């Protein structure tokens, strides 16, 4: 029956990583597809004063004012001017809609459990806690980011007392 198939599907899905990968400083990163609401072109960002550099400001997303962060700067990667490939990834984390600027959107990928390893215990460019795992696909290495953790850090960065 239809329903039975559906159940089977979700069961299998649990073991799969459905990801959207993107480029940041020549390397490939990914978010879980379920974290992402939409991807939009770069649009006018209204800056807000007194904020760390990685907090670019706010954008108008269909009448809603939402925060924009520069993911490169947040992860302490070298800065880069926006170009026509630059995209804004709109995500929902902890019931807050936030958006992150990335260099380029790559593709939707599916990895099995066996293709994903935990972050290695060596010093990495970015905070290890922000990494959910390392995915391997066709010889490429994809860093899967932990969005909740990143947002936690952002909240800590702006020093506000909100429940995360």
């Amino acid at each position, binding site marked *: *029956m239809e*329903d*039975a198939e559906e*159940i089977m599907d979700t069961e299998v899905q649990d073991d799969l990583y459905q990801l959207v990968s993107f480029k940041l400083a020549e390397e490939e990163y990914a978010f879980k597809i379920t974290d992402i609401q939409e991807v939009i072109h770069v649009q*006018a960002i*209204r*800056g*807000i*004063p*007194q*904020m760390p550099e990685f*907090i670019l400001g*706010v*954008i*108008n997303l269909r*009448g*809603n*004012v*939402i*925060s924009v962060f520069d993911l490169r700067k947040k992860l302490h990667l070298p800065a880069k001017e926006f170009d026509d490939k630059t995209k804004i990834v709109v995500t929902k984390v902890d019931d*807050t809609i*936030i958006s992150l600027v990335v260099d380029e959107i790559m593709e939707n990928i599916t990895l099995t459990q066996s293709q994903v390893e935990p972050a290695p215990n060596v010093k990495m460019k970015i905070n290890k806690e922000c990494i959910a795992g390392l995915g391997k696909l066709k010889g490429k290495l994809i860093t899967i980011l932990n969005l909740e953790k990143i947002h936690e850090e*952002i*909240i800590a960065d*702006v*020093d*506000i007392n*909100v429940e995360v």
Partner: protein
Amino acid sequence: MAESYEMSDDEKQEIIEEFLAESDQYLQSLNDCLLKAEELIKGGQTVEKDDINLMFRAAHTIKGTASFIDLTTISHLTHEMETVLDRIRNDQMDFTVEAIDVLFAAFDSLSALLERLKTEGDDQGDVSESLEKIRQILSGEAPAAAEEPVAAEKPAEPAVEEPQEVVPEESEASSESDEELEKYWAAFIEDTQQNIERFDEILLNMEKGDFKPDYLNELFRISHTIKGSSGIVKRRDLEMLSHKMEDILSGMREKEEPPAEHITTLLFKGIDWIKETVNEIQSGKRQERDPGELVQEFEKLLAAEAASPAGASEVSAPADQGQAPAIDINALNSEQAIKLEEARGLKQAVYNLTIAVSEKCPAKSMKAMLAKERLSKEGIIIAMVPEETAIDDSSTAKVSIQFLYSTSESQEGIPAFVSIDEIELVSLDKIDMAEEKPAEPAVAEPKAAAAAPAAAAKPQAAQKPVKKEAAKEKQSKSAPVEVTSMRVDVRKLDNLMNLAGELVITRARFSQLLLELRNEVSSTRQTIDKFREIENSLMGLKMKTAETVSSAEANGGQDRDELKKMIETIGQKFQDTSRQTSTKLITEKIYNMDEATRNLEKLSSDIQNGVMQTRMVPIEGVFSRFKRLVRDIAKEIKKDVKLDIYGEDTELDKKITDELGDPLTHMIRNAVDHGLENTEERKATDKPQQGTVTLGAMHKGNNICIEISDDGKGLDPDKIANKAFEKEIITEDALEQMSDREKMGLIFAPGFSTAEQVTGLSGRGVGMDVVKKMIESLNGTVDIESEMGQGTSFKLKIPLTLAIIQALLVVIDNEVFALPLESVSEIVKVMPDEVYRIEGTATIKLRDHTLSLVELEKVIQIEQKKIGADDERRVVVITDGENQVGICVDELIGEDEIVIKSLPVHFTNVIGISGASILGDGRICLILDVGAIIKEAQ
């Protein structure tokens, strides 16, 4: 059934056809859900609540219609199915494979019955087997195989939480379950609180010596209403106490004289107890309290009153226990209010109609529905309490149902509508909608009498021991009242408010687009002008060529003709093109669109105002509680105090009134406790012995001004200053430079309290600093005026609404900012040589005083354009009510209404920016927080 009303065969056939079509859909979803459920149960999983509800609803709906058209077998069968499903969804029964089997069997029987109805026109099929199976499963016997362990062991709790929310009203089971009650709580709390306030007010008035016989009627009515609604939410404690109060009042109102003091005191006690209890309920405590002692006091009083002859006949009149509370025509929900309006529009009379379903009737809800259907066929049911879905079929008591009913039929004709087996007409009163005075139902009386024969024929009415009493009570219930308000969910209004905000934004976007379009047209026009020029020069060329050619005629004609032709073609083409690109049509369209946009602008601002108006409530609701507060405090501290209130019908946003209660309470306490001298002190001066506290409100532009003043000793600036110094709030140096006004402002400093001794009333930790903060959180300001020996006056200024503000839009370094117009006092032009520096601060001279210019870059890190030495500057002068500073802006855009949007959580700590707004062109503009900027600048 012996019913006075019979459907014609045609009518019946039509209904049956409709019923069959409708049932088909429900059968389909029933079938789908059962299959799905079976699959899930066999797989050891839980069936979704939604699906169970869907099935329940299907069975319930079929049952309802079937019983209406007398398809007894179908209604019986579906009723049983409904019972099974109801138990399952309430987790009173496991959803097992057996249950599925039983439901499937019933489903098959039902399909067969419907098939029979289609072909034979009746539903006389045999369903005994299915019914027997249902009976077995309901009684817990396993009909066939033993229960499957998988299903049986399944824990019931995952499903427990959901059902309340997902079940739409009409599908509610007939039993008045807890979730049903939950819906009443909110309404109950609100109604009862309003009633308590009114009760309090009347008691206070009477205590003051202002007595009207109507008051007693009103008190009686309020007690009665509280009793009734407490009954609905099953609060026996409240019901019991309000019943006792009602009894007392019932006796008193006959006497038409002011109650004795001990009675008033007891009534105060009673209403206070009710108030406390309702507050507890509101804060989530649902435990019943024990009103035992109070009830005893009331009983004692009752006994004493009964001893006097006047009271005797009254007290014996028992209140009508089983009766639902009268429908309050003033408390209709929106749907009902619309119906009432409709009825009024048709100029139809409105009646209060009460019927009772006999206690012996097995399917009371069904009978109620039948009555409802009948009534709605002949008129409009404005309200029905309780709804048929809320009637408990298993109850063995008589069920009384109240209708607010309107019909074009004469009053005498109405009893026929409800002449149904096992239903009796209890009362029928006409409500005179035009009658202004609520307490004098002169018109209603003869009509009620006309209804009397119908009522008298019924044994129940005849049994009423004191007829006069009953009639009187009915009269007060049906007292003609005008519908002036209705209840709307605040969330709905909030949503509407947001939409209105979006509309304003979209409107602005239209204006913007129109402007762009106009620019586009004017540039097209320029292009056309260019075309014309080219065309002209081409003509010139043509003539010149003709001349040249004719002078060189001898050279042969062929070249000449070709050239001529070529030039002519080009000329023609230019002419065509320029004609085609005429802007006339588009200009006309733009003109029309401009007009439409202007209309839209007016409409959207009207809508916005309208929506805002709906959120506006009189401040009376907040003020009225202070009458009691002042009385209580004055009694406790033995001062003679009078509270003067003015402007209580001043309206403001409901949200703000909710927030105002606490700060005002505190300020009034202060005024009575600290502001006013005690009686001896007052005697010593020339002041009247009675102190006066004044509480008033009025509109001033887009603000509401609230004044709390007393005629007491006034604030002593030096005493305050010393205190502040002692408490190390300020330094001695600072003190010396302070004006009296500034010194008085110190009472708002955190940790300040002027009371020399902390009494139980004031100084319980909520200082004036908290009051100020609360007012500021509403974007309001507090101002003090005080004269020694004459009194103190606090003036609050609060914007009427929080969602939309008038703002001045300015450009600072290519970014748009909004300044609340409220805080802009003026705009001045300044030449560079007029700016000088005092202690490093840029300052200008504004008339006869100096004004410092805020450097936003330093204060809140907003960059400002570097301006050339010779450039004229525009300075916006902003104020927080006390201080003024200037902000240099690069450009002024103008005034506009903007919708405030809060910034995302990440920007909570940003100073100097209070929010954002979206402009017509989609850009975001930041709203500057004037108060914070001035504070930071100092």
